[in-house]
C-alpha cells in the first residue's frame, strides 16, 4: 500500500528539522521494545541531544512511509543529518567501532562504567586531574 502523503511529508519535515532523530517503540523514558531501548542507551552513552518519535500509535502507516523514504520497515530507526543510519544492530556496531561518535561529532565514551561506580557530581576529588606541561 502507498504511504499516506500527508504523513510522509510530516516525517520528511521531522527528519530535515532534527539532526538526530529516533523513531522508536515507546518513549526514551519508557521504551516499549528492547531494541528501541538499546538505541536509547547508545544515544545516552554518547550524551547527544535527539528527537524521538513513538511509532506505536501509527505503526503501520509509518512503516509504509519509511519503506518509501528509506527502504526500511522495522523500528527503531536512527536518522542523522537526514540519513537513515540504521536500527539497533547497526547503531550498536557503530558505537563499538567509534563510527557513530564520529558521525555525531561527539567524543567516544569511555568503556561503560556501571551506574553505582560512577563518581558522583561534586564527589571525590582524591585524584586531581593530570597536569599537562
Amino acid at each position: 500500500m502507498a504511504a499516506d502523503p500527508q504523513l510522509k511529508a510530516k516525517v520528511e519535515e521531522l527528519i530535515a528539522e532534527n539532526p538526530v532523530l529516533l523513531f522508536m517503540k515507546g518513549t526514551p523514558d519508557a521504551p516499549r521494545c528492547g531494541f528501541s531501548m538499546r538505541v536509547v542507551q547508545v544515544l545516552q552513552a554518547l550524551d547527544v541531544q535527539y528527537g524521538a518519535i513513538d511509532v506505536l500509535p501509527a505503526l503501520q502507516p509509518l512503516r509504509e512511509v519509511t519503506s518509501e523514504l528509506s527502504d526500511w520497515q522495522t523500528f527503531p530507526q536512527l536518522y542523522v543529518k537526514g540519513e537513515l543510519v540504521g536500527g539497533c544492530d547497526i547503531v550498536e556496531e557503530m558505537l563499538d567501532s567509534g563510527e557513530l561518535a564520529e558521525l555525531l561529532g561527539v567524543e567516544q565514551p569511555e568503556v561503560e562504567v556501571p551506574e553505582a561506580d560512577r563518581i558522583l557530581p561534586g564527589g571525590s576529588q582524591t585524584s586531581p586531574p593530570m597536569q599537562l606541561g
Partner: protein
Amino acid sequence: MADLAELKGMIEAALPGAEVEVVDEGGGDHLRASVTSEQFEGLSRIDQHRLVRAAVRERFEDGSIHALSIRTSTP
C-alpha cells in the same frame, strides 16, 4: 516458522560467493544472519543490511520472520 536453510540459500543467491550463517535466536522467528561478502566493499552498513534484507524480503512479508538481526562484514 522460518526455514533457516532456505533463508541461507536466498541470501547466497542474492550475494553470490558470500559466506552466510543463519541461526535461530529463539522461537523460530527471531533470527540472526551473519554475512561476509565482497559485494559489501565500499557500502555503508545500512546499504549492506539493505542487500541482506532485500534477499529475504518475501519471508518478512509472509510473516515467517518477525525479527532478523544482521551482521555484515567484508572478507
